């Protein structure tokens, strides 16, 4: 049995033609438009959340409860009260990633901007600079290196082994895993949705095997709901890990 199913090459489902400013470094395609939309929505959250009405309504309500979620659910759980000054940055990070992700399931857009490696890479490098610079301001450059490379209570004989391991895990693996986690999760979700949508379209025939059509159709609906959860969860995990990295770079426990 041949379904006549032709899955598009992977580059076709994430590549979008540049339609403005072609052949320059500032070419604009669908993904760039999604960046702008997400940035504008993030700014709206801040502007509308700043109205300071006593009884919040509408957007202010949403903004206040989400800022509360960032402060209580991310900052207080990972950094404690001294991390509250980082709450505005983490809020912006969370919402920007969330909006970039959620365009995956919004009809007529249906492209997660984070499924292109550029945005996760930029965000991971940004977080890398933030936690390193914050640590250097807190401890001084030399003190920061000591703080992050030498765990407390390690015997001196083990240092030649421990220091390279700590260096790789703190300075190389951290941004890499941040980047890959966000990118791969959203790319996988996008491919999953495309697969079942293509399968549904291929079964839209008068042949007998059209009776299988409800299966991929329900899968599309189920995975769309699942991707809402993934979009939220990945934004949450990225923000949480950024908070944890900043905390471990600036902590004074040892």
């Amino acid at each position, binding site marked *: 049995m041949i379904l006549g199913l032709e899955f598009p090459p*992977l580059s076709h489902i994430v590549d979008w033609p540049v339609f403005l400013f072609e052949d320059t470094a500032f070419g604009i395609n669908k993904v760039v438009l999604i960046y702008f939309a997400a940035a504008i929505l993030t700014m709206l959250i801040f502007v509308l959340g700043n109205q300071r009405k006593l009884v919040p309504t509408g957007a202010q309500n949403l903004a206040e409860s989400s800022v509360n979620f960032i402060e209580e659910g991310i900052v207080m*759980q990972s950094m404690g009260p001294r991390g509250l000054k980082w709450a505005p940055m983490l809020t912006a990070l969370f919402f920007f990633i969330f909006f970039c992700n959620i365009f995956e399931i919004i009809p007529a857009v249906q492209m997660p901007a984070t499924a292109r490696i550029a945005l996760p890479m930029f965000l991971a490098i940004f977080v890398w600079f933030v936690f390193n610079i914050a640590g250097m301001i807190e401890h001084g450059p030399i003190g920061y290196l000591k703080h992050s490379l030498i765990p407390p209570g390690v015997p001196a004989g083990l240092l030649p082994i421990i220091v390279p391991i700590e260096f790789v895990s703190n300075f190389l693996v951290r941004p890499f*895993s941040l980047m*890959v*986690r966000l990118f*791969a999760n959203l790319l996988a979700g996008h491919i999953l949705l495309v697969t079942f949508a293509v399968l549904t379209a291929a079964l839209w025939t008068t042949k007998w095997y059209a009776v299988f059509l409800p299966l991929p159709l329900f899968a599309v609906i189920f995975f769309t709901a699942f991707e809402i959860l993934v979009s939220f*969860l990945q934004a949450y995990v990225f923000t*949480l890990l950024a908070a*944890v990295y900043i905390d471990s770079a600036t902590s004074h426990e040892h």
Partner: protein
Amino acid sequence: MILAEITDTGLAALTYGIGALGPGIGIGYLVGQAVQAMARQPEAAGMVRTTMFLGIAFVEALALIGFVVFFLGQA
């Protein structure tokens, strides 16, 4: 009748499947233990949940690296 043909794509997919085994077991165990901890001490649920997501993020990274390598193998 050919049941399965070993191609580069098939091999890459199979390798990713094997690579996903470990993180699958890991996440299952991790979340199970976290649920147990939350059930025993509901007042610590917030802290346990945060730590659980952190752990999931680290374990999941292994499977996701496999996923990316799968695509690198295609290119």
